[in-house]
């Protein structure tokens, strides 16, 4: 187990999340993908923390987790609002404003 491998794992996770973010049309799917990407960030931080031998990465990861949680909470609330308006959580439905 090397730092490089950990970083590649996190990069792969990030890219899979990106793939999901770009393909999903359903708001829940998008939130799940964002979670994957956020998780990749945390893996990076923890890996750096381990290989550098300091606590800084872990502290940052702690904050990162908290930030992601707040994003998800608000995101879910917005999705529910969306569903309330359209009875549908596919984001393509909300396209009244364009061009």
């Amino acid at each position, binding site marked *: 187990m090397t730092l490089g491998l950990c970083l590649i794992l996190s990069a*792969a996770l990030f890219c899979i999340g990106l793939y999901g973010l770009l393909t999903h049309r359903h708001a829940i799917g998008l939130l799940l993908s964002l979670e994957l990407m956020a998780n990749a960030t945390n893996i990076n931080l*923890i890996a750096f923390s381990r290989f550098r031998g300091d606590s800084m990465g872990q502290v940052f990861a702690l904050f990162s987790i908290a930030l992601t949680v707040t994003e998800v909470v608000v995101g879910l609330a917005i999705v529910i609002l969306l569903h309330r308006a359209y009875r549908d959580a596919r984001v393509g439905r909300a396209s009244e404003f364009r061009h």
Partner: protein
Amino acid sequence: MIEQVGFGLVAGCIVLAALLVARAKNAIHGVLWLGVVLGATAVLYVMLRAPFLAGIQLLLYVGGVMTLMILGVMLTRHDQHEAALERKRPWLAGVLSLFLLGMLVTAIQTSPELHASEAAPATVKDIGRSLLTEHVLAFEALSLLLLATMIGAIVLLRRDRPDRLVEESR
């Protein structure tokens, strides 16, 4: 050696489950696979000598976020049709993601490698001290953020009038 195999297993588990999340057709399945990713990541944290973070991960993510997500799915699901996650443009997304992966891997490969430090792993005490000294300002800001999020989530879904929307009353 054991470590290598362990890492391989966990990493494979994470990637596989992540792929299943990204390609999930059913919202509940997606959430459950995300749970697997997050859980496996917690194991990885333990392997990376960060047991405290692993605990947080399990507690906050698997406990909190997963519950929220499932709640979200339930609240936005009305019939079988809408539980299905619609997906589009897989090719474009695939190309872009692989492109990003290529660039990131190149960057990782060409950057100098760090050797594993032999220093003692950071303890909860270290983390706590750091939080309450150097990063106390950010910590306090974070508490404000959590408060704002709470209030925000409430106000988002609250209405001035108790009567229901026309769609819901149908």
